[in-house]
């Protein structure tokens, strides 16, 4: 057989099965980063339990030269380093795939599959021979299998060694034994195994100037660049690392070198109610402030969000969504907070949402949210999710224009007050529904007002007059229309000029190019729209009205985006078919395309002619 002809380059899924707390993460990360440095597009997915130590954890890397890096079912190469999960790990390997395991002890008969290739490496035995210290042996186990993989997959060994040197810079005595462990694994593989496999990597230049980063890092960094000075938060997976990123970069860039004083304040609050309260208190005083949370925290913040909406106070909330309801699956992803975020709090409330899809967009939307909150004097909620927030993926680099100025919105200073006749906080001077605000302490005699969650007239005086109340609520509606013109519009691709349109948002963007290709191969060509914000602007409804049939892909059970589109746009729901995945893993291209194809088959909708089905 011509082996070369069957070799699959830069297109496979490797999954590492480890025990959490065993130090596998750094070795696995080195594996992924080395491939990234070879110029190969990839995405990393951590599948971890809500636990500190001792439970199974998986690290999955999808490698794909075309850039299809959404999650894909099935594993091509399983690095099975956790005996506890052998059964399911062996099960998940695709027929013809590979299982790399430690054969210091034989693989139990019941786990042996005839249709996959078992690659046994006696890692424990080798380590026993080479390293005296038991602790070292445990750590180097991960490095040894990395060495084995470098030979099996034909990785650039120099890049790998270089990564060891960089990652242990400052702890130089660790470099040598780590490289030794790498070499032990590599040499063993070269001597005893057939290398490389028929799935392997080769250098390419498909990465360009992209970076490999997680969304929460982008979010935290965006808040630094956007000028946030106050962060109040309560720890919750999967949002915590966004605050940690803010703190890391603020510590690096916001400490006055002369005085050592900080140009920011971070408070770990007692709960999410307090976090959002602090953010609102700071926003009321003109400081840019944000909090980060996940679903349960969003629920707790509801009352305050209603206050900020009604009293018109800037506030930014990053919600890194996880699987609900209730505690749900805290370490799994979902897009299920749309409704509770959009309409958080009692009474007639609605909130501006920004929905990023990439780490770069996380960065941009963080900075943008602070501008929008100040401009619109209202809460802005960014809806990220665990898939985006906590997993490293390829992203366009972060960019910043040094000429950019923060938009602080309509704030009247002392001189402005001096020049004005009578200040009215809730007047609508420009017809855009947005009043002018003053900050506490501005002027000795003018501009002070009482902020409240109760109804008030244009001059901020308490009122129970139906006319004043209605006028105020209507002004808030005008402001809502203004918001629709300011939020980022959808990303639209109408190049197919199709009768069919596919609507998606957030991390569904990752598998989308692959899903489109799969559909196209079936004679189904779609126009695409990625919704990026709420309120929906005119472009969103134009796209819907210009297509006969639409598919809305969501990672929740209740078709939440569809509900919002139908309600806000008075649409006929029949025009909108839902594609819903909500199992807690990220949605796959295969799932999207097969669901859409199912609709076509069930309804006998016509496909493109000339495609052989």
């Amino acid at each position, binding site marked *: 057989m011509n082996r070369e002809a069957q070799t699959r380059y830069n297109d496979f899924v490797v999954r590492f099965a480890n025990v959490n707390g065993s130090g596998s993460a750094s070795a696995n990360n080195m594996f992924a980063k080395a491939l990234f440095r070879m110029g190969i597009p990839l995405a990393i997915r951590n599948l971890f339990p809500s636990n500190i130590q001792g439970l199974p954890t998986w690290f999955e890397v999808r490698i794909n030269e075309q850039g299809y890096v959404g999650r894909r079912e099935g594993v091509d190469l399983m690095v099975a380093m956790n005996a506890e999960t052998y059964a399911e790990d062996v099960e998940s390997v695709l027929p013809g795939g590979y299982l790399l395991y430690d054969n210091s002890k034989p693989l139990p008969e019941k786990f042996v599959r005839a249709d996959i290739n078992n690659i046994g490496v006696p890692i424990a035995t080798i380590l026993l021979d080479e390293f005296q210290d038991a602790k070292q042996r445990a750590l180097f186990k991960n490095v040894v299998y990395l060495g084995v993989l470098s030979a099996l997959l034909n990785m650039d060994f120099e890049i790998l060694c270089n990564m060891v040197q960089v990652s242990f810079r400052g702890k130089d005595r660790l470099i040598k034994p780590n490289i030794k462990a790498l070499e032990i694994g590599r040499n063993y593989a070269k001597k005893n195994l057939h290398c490389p496999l028929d799935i392997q990597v080769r250098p390419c230049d498909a990465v360009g100037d992209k970076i490999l980063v997680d969304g929460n890092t982008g979010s935290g960094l965006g808040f630094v660049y956007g000028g946030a000075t106050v962060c109040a938060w309560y720890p919750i997976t999967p949002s915590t690392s966004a605050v940690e990123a803010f703190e890391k970069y603020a510590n690096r860039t916001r400490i006055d070198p002369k005085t050592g004083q900080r140009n920011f304040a971070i408070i770990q609050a007692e709960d999410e109610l307090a976090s959002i309260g602090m953010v609102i208190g700071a926003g009321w005083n*003109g400081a840019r402030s944000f909090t980060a949370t996940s679903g349960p925290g969003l629920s707790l913040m509801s009352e305050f969000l209603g206050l900020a909406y009604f009293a018109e106070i800037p506030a930014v909330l990053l919600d890194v969504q996880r699987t609900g309801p209730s505690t749900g699956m805290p370490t799994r992803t979902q897009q299920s907070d749309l409704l509770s975020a959009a309409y958080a709090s009692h009474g007639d409330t609605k909130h501006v949402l920004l929905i990023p899809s990439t780490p770069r967009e996380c960065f941009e939307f963080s900075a943008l949210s602070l501008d929008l909150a100040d401009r619109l004097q209202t809460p802005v909620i960014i809806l990220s999710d665990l898939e985006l927030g906590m997993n490293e993926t390829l992203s366009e680099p972060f960019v910043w224009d040094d000429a950019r100025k923060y938009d602080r919105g309509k704030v009247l200073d002392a001189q402005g007050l001096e020049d004005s006749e009578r200040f009215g906080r809730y007047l609508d001077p420009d017809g855009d529904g947005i009043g002018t605000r003053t900050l506490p302490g501005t002027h000795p005699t003018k501009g002070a007002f009482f902020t409240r969650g109760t109804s008030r007239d244009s001059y901020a005086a308490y009122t129970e007059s139906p006319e004043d109340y209605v006028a105020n609520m209507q002004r808030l509606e005008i402001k809502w229309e203004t918001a629709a013109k300011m939020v980022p519009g959808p990303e639209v691709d109408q190049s197919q000029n199709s009768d069919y349109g596919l609507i998606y948002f957030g991390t569904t963007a990752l598998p989308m190019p692959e899903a489109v290709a799969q559909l196209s191969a079936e004679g189904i060509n779609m126009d695409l729209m990625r919704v990026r914000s709420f309120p929906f602007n005119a472009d969103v409804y134009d796209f819907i009205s210009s297509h006969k049939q639409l598919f809305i892909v969501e990672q929740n059970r209740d078709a939440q985006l569809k509900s919002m589109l139908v309600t806000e746009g008075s649409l006929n729901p029949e025009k909108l078919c839902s594609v819903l995945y909500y199992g807690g893993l990220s949605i796959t291209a295969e799932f999207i395309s097969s669901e859409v194809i199912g609709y076509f088959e069930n309804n006998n909708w016509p496909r493109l002619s000339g495609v052989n089905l």
Partner: protein
Amino acid sequence: MTFVSKPAVHHPKLKLNELGLNRRDYEGSLSTLCAGCGHDSVSAAITLACSELSLPPHRFAKISGIGCSSKTPSYFLGKSHGFNSVHGRMPSVATGTNLANSSLHLIGVSGDGDSASIGLGQFAHIVRRRINMLYIVDNNGTYGLTKGQFSATNDQGSTSKKGVPNLYAPIDLVSMALQLGATFVARSFSGDKAQLVPLIKAALMHPGFAFIDVISPCVAFNNHEGSTKSYGYVRDHDSQVVAADLVMHRDEITADYAPGEREDITMPDGSCLRLRKLSADYDPRDRLLASNYIMQKAAIGEIVTGLLYIDPAASDCHTIMNTTTQPLSELDESVLCPGATVLSEINSSFR
């Protein structure tokens, strides 16, 4: 509901303070609370204290939660911004205010329902965080706006207007504040202006978190025989320990005290806090003693009032966090944004 606006005219002989302002310049709008409500006396005391301290009346932020007490920031310091937030959450909004603008004088007004029930968690944590502010609780032991239910500070056995006794143990916010590390703790009575006004002045000048629990009778629902928060009961059971007079550095100290009865504490701004001991066996700088003393007196039905504890070396949240002395709200792009060059370095770290 109708509102009568206050006449702006004032008596020509009203005393002017250092800023050339009189007491009326520190007032707010007309109160809508019940006639005789203790809370109005507290508002009046705040007005007087701020005026006597000659602080600019617009340089305050007044934050409150929900309830009768929380309406009161409308009724004093009308030239300052106020924020009537949500029930039990005044501390978090006050914290955010202080984080954003540390240059404002911060007054939080809360009630016993607001602080001891729904907001007990936020109360505890703002004490821990040492936000530089005056935190006043108008404590009447009852829910006024919802017509007279017991609050969590209501004493066990104290009766409602209909004669029903309260079955549960009270929460003593003063004891809690002491336990949680507050650096200025006082209790007073809305009917005792002579005691309350100096305490508010001292609290406002305290460079850290200052807590005053003011027993403030509810004339509508908790001022009857059988209540332990009525005017009559508090007057009969008030046990004053330490009176505090804030002597501004410009003032000559003329009052004469017997030796051993007084103690002067120099404040950071150079003014002097003069403590007069009204009880020989009390030391307001001993946290442990204060706690014990208050509980011992409570056991025999006495309400200890006065300056209960002070730590003159107090620090605040900003000192602990080492934040810049300039208000964070005033910082602009030049300080806050690291710029494109730094960003490209950061990008490189992800390659």
